[in-house]
């Protein structure tokens, strides 16, 4: 495994199943991530990330899927889908720790360009996911005026 460039961890008072659903259900992802994650989440299947009804911003493949514990996906900007140098890899690990869930997101194989666009987005996505699962609400404008969503 390459050395990860980013490792993000959040602890959420919820269950692994709910975290898995929140990462893989198109409607739930739209609530806290603005864009939807769409796939059948079987190994080898394509997945996409984008606004509902619009062309996706991010596309990739499901590399590993072990619900509700581990999900590994490849990520490419939709416009660079066939350029292997722009392909990165995101791993989600979901661990039950007592009444909490530890969600670890690891992003590897990012290029400098990918790095610049992604590093602001993940903390907002993960804290909004935590808020949604713990309170049922989301933060308005989670990415603020300066931060960007990872997809851009």
């Amino acid at each position, binding site marked *: *495994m390459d*050395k*990860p*460039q*980013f*490792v*993000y*961890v*959040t*602890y959420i008072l919820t269950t692994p199943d709910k975290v898995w659903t929140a990462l893989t259900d198109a409607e739930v992802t739209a609530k806290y991530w603005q864009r939807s994650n769409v796939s059948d989440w079987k190994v080898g299947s394509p997945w996409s990330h984008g606004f509902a009804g619009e062309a996706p911003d991010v596309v990739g493949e499901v590399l590993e899927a072990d619900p509700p514990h581990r999900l590994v996906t490849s990520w490419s900007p939709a416009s660079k889908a066939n350029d292997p140098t722009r392909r990165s890899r995101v791993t989600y690990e979901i661990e039950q720790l007592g009444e909490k869930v530890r969600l*670890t997101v*690891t992003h590897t194989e990012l290029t400098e360009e990918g790095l610049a666009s992604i590093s602001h987005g*993940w*903390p*907002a996505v*993960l*804290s909004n996911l*935590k808020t949604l699962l713990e309170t049922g609400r989301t*933060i308005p404008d*989670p990415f603020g005026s300066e931060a960007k969503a990872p997809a851009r």
Partner: protein
Amino acid sequence: MDLVFKALADISRRRLLDSLHATPGQTLGALTEGQEMTRQAVSQHLALLEAANLVTTVRRGREKLHYLNPVPIHALQTRWIAKFERPRLDALAALKAKLEGDDDG
């Protein structure tokens, strides 16, 4: 949240976070090189940062790599900073409504 504030309330720990921000994935040895502290002091500070979830570690072979985890800082920002900006924005909106005469008063 208490742990996050406590962890941030120390210049040595903030310097360690700065170092991890600049170079993610450092070992304890690499982190110690850049600091005017003993390896043991750095290790203790890292333990506190890890307890606050500001630092997370990944094992790679025999190495333990340290990463800055910005998620709690983001939570702190939305909960404690954005929240306090809100009344000011509301006050401006009320002032605008009053000056433009579009309220009932």
